[in-house]
């Protein structure tokens, strides 16, 4: 062991000063609070993610519905309903099914319901829009 090592050893082995450190129980309380905050933050993030995903799903469904709905809604008021539903839904049905949606277009009543659903979904987006909520 060289001179430096001896001296270093001596210094490092000096008795450590006994500090009066903050109490563990105080710290433990803060730890529990921090853990709770961490948990809440995680839950908020999950909720926010769920909200964003559901909003996206609504927006996508509205866009799909808007693309196909005008023709269908118009046809609901005309006597040729049966003819329109027989031709038009096949095309629009393909798009919707590929997106994971299944909507029956066989009756004009369904079309009216869909139009109502679109209006209702739009209302929900407007109502629960984060910007609107912040205001």
């Amino acid at each position, binding site marked *: 062991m060289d001179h430096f090592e001896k001296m*270093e050893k*001596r210094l490092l082995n*000096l008795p450590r000063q006994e500090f009066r450190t903050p109490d563990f129980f105080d*710290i433990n309380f*803060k*730890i529990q609070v921090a853990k709770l905050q961490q948990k809440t933050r995680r839950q908020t993030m999950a909720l926010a993610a769920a909200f964003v995903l559901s909003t996206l799903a609504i927006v996508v469904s509205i866009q799909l519905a808007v693309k196909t709905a005008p023709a269908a809604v118009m046809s609901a008021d005309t006597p040729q309903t049966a003819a329109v539903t027989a031709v038009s839904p096949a095309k629009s049905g393909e798009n919707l099914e590929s997106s994971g949606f299944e909507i029956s277009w066989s009756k004009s009543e369904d079309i009216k319901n869909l139009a109502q659903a679109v209006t209702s979904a739009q209302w929900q987006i407007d109502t629960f829009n984060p910007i609107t909520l912040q205001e």
Partner: protein
Amino acid sequence: MEYKDSQLIENYLGGDQHALELLFDKYRNVFYSYFNRMMSNNFSDADDLFQELWIKIATSLHQCKDRDNFVYWAFRIAKNLGIDHFRKQKMKFAGNIEDVGNVVLDESGPVWESIDNEILQKHLDDFLSKANPELKEVFEMRRAGLSFKEIAELQNCSINTALSRMRYLVNGLKKGLEDYYGSL
């Protein structure tokens, strides 16, 4: 009975709250001493940082990969907390790496061996209070059992630089003692 760090960590992560208290008792002086040294005995700041450190340890202990080397992991957090603290105060946490250089130790005379622990401790504290932060840090980390390699990683410098810092401390202290006590 002395538990291994890895065992305490596993127990704590398994839900045993008491394990954290044992870990705290084991290392409270190491980290409190470190913060006090780095904060130049500003007890209020040292207290805050010390508490913050344990909160971080408790909430992110699952991220500690090398559980047998808990001290190294915890020192990394402690160092970052110190840097953040100094940044907030717009002060410099670390000095210039180059200011230490390669120090050659004077090999003459066993000055240390004849000096009382208390006197040596006092001189050490005086010397460190005027030293730059890296020197203080090297000393506290060495005291906590970290190798020069680990210290170099934490200080983001070469092993030689970390070693030079310790040599500078040892040599500077020796010179200070000699000046003070004449030719011991």
